């Protein structure tokens, strides 16, 4: 039987501020290596999104204006999204997209927006934006080498608070629930962190009943090691 992974890239044109397209390219590349067919559907406002049809739903980060536009559209699918998450569909939300799955986004003006209310956290707008490089350590990837690092770039206007859910790393700006992964890191996270990409895909392949072969000698891993050597091990990061 033909093996196939179907991916929905949600709001690809609105939530793609810092090269989040790279995450889709990474998924495509990594899945192709497994000799599994891949279908990528780019969906946006006005499309009828089926939350039962796809194996992985990806949504990236966007400007606050675009985020509110997307929120308005996503709220139409609130029940379908909740069911999909409960049924073990894989979701990956990066950058500020994670906010959309919480309870509220509260602005400094006092105004607040109701979000999907799937998770209990809130996003509170800050006086000053957080614009920074970031390194997390992901214990599940720690094999004694440098593979435990997850690094990236963060540019957001909110803090996540009241996040009592299970987390990937010990900071409040991420969440893991069943096969839902939310991380407030912008940009091509899956390109820069190939160990994490393998981790996510292994879970996805498990959920489909497919075998997953780990390849760690590809160009992305060389880039990862180069970055660790140049900018993590040999730098004086705060």
């Amino acid at each position, binding site marked *: 039987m033909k093996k196939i992974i179907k991916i929905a890239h949600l709001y*690809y*044109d*609105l939530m*793609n*501020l*810092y*090269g*989040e*397209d*790279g995450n889709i*390219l*990474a998924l495509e*590349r990594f899945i192709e290596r497994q000799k599994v067919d891949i279908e990528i559907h780019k969906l946006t*406002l006005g499309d009828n999104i089926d939350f039962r049809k796809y194996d992985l739903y990806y949504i990236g980060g*966007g*400007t*606050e*204006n*675009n985020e509110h*536009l997307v929120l308005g559209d996503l709220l139409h699918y609130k029940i379908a999204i909740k069911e999909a998450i409960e049924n073990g569909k894989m979701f990956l939300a990066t950058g500020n997209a994670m906010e959309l799955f919480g309870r509220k986004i509260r602005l400094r003006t006092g105004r607040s927006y109701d979000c999907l209310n799937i998770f209990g956290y809130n996003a509170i707008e800050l006086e000053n*934006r957080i*614009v*920074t*490089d*970031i*390194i997390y350590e992901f214990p599940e990837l720690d094999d004694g080498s440098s593979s435990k690092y997850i*690094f*990236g*770039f963060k*540019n957001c*206007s909110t803090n996540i608070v009241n996040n009592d859910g299970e987390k990937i790393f010990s900071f409040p700006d991420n969440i893991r629930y069943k096969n839902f992964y939310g991380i407030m890191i*912008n*940009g*091509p996270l899956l*390109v*820069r962190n190939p160990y994490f990409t393998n981790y996510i895909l292994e879970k996805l392949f498990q959920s489909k009943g497919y075998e997953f072969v780990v390849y760690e000698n590809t*160009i*992305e891993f*060389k*880039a990862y*090691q*180069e*970055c660790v050597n*140049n*900018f*993590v091990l040999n*730098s004086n*990061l705060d």
Partner: protein
Amino acid sequence: MIFLKRFDTIMQTEEVMKAVLTIILYKMITFLYHIFNRNDKKYQEKFSDKFYEKIKDEIIYPIDSFCILNSYNNEEFREPFMSMLKNINKKVIWNKNITCSKKEFSALILNNLKFFSRKLNGDVLLFETSDYNIIKDYLKPAFSHLVINDIGREMSITNGNADNFMNIILETIKNCNIKLILNIDNPLINKIKYACGNEITTYGIAQTKYDSNTPLTPSDFNYCPSCQSKLEFSSYHLPHLGVYKCPMCSFDRGTPNFLVDEVDFDKKQLKINNNIVNFFSSNFFEIYNLTLNYILASKMGILNTNVDCLNRRKENINEFIIASRKIKILKIQPDCPSTILHSLLTIPNDKKEKNLVIGFDEFSMKHKLNDISSLYNTDFSSLNEKTDKIYCIGKCKYDIATRLEFDHIDSKKIIMIKDLKDLNYKLFNESKGDIYLLVDINIIENIINILKEKDS
């Protein structure tokens, strides 16, 4: 006695007196730093903004003072502008780097202030920036014109994102009489036309034969900033710049006051409001810059004497020959994907052999981990057709090679240069044809020196 009378007139108000004393104090402190052989520029910038804040409203700025908002560092604009002004013996006070902070801006102004008259020691102030703090805090007293040449989605480092930047601009210009010059090919910039009552001059490029009728890369600028419907673009010059209208509301690119038409990259000629102007690039950014020069010359009333100056611009100086091979430097700003994309577009799509040396040590000067987002807001797939070999160098060579492979560039074309000592051998012995350099500012000098060793 004459001096005292003049001093008395100058010190007519308490504010003016304070301003003059502040300028004197600033100059004394910087002089002391200078004589003690300290890096006076570095130290000046530690306190310059505090001095400037105290006296900014008392300074007499030139009548022509332009704040230019850009997403990329813009020598193509600055060089002809300066030569135009030099041509008529006008002195320009200007900054070199658009990432200039408030402190650097303050130091620039204070260093060029005359002691008693509080006037700037120049005829024109030209300040390029990509930082909203300058707009927010210093636009009002310092500038007669705000020129918005480009706002890109990548202006994230200091500004949050383009929407945040736009909100700051609208808030700042609302209560100020500053004149605006706007590139309305960018829908976000065009939003200002609908949102404020300031005096506005607009410019843009009409549809050209080089345009694409489909998006060059996914861009959220394709949505109407007024009603959020998807804009209908009849053509794209660049991913976020083109000719468009909103199908659902009155938001429209419309006809700008200065319309660039009949762009011909082969003849290197175009028309601005039906006047023929020559240029020496194959790059839409260059056309916007040229147009901007044309508009500013027109605003200053010096266009008639200077249009020749624009026409006479030197051919691209970033070209040289080594070992009988033509080397061409492509100008880019690594954290600005539009500049990378456009540099790639300027590599001709012909059958001659061509090679690319690509490498960045730093994508952004402000981030230690080198955010690589800009690589993924750019499309590299044209390199399959345009180049024979691609040499990846620098600290991020594998990031670049990864990006190229993701765009399905033939892996046989991609050559990793792990040690720069090997570059010359591989480049000159294993390839033929022109060599294009797409490298960041930190390593360009080193690379050129290495290439020149081939001749020596």
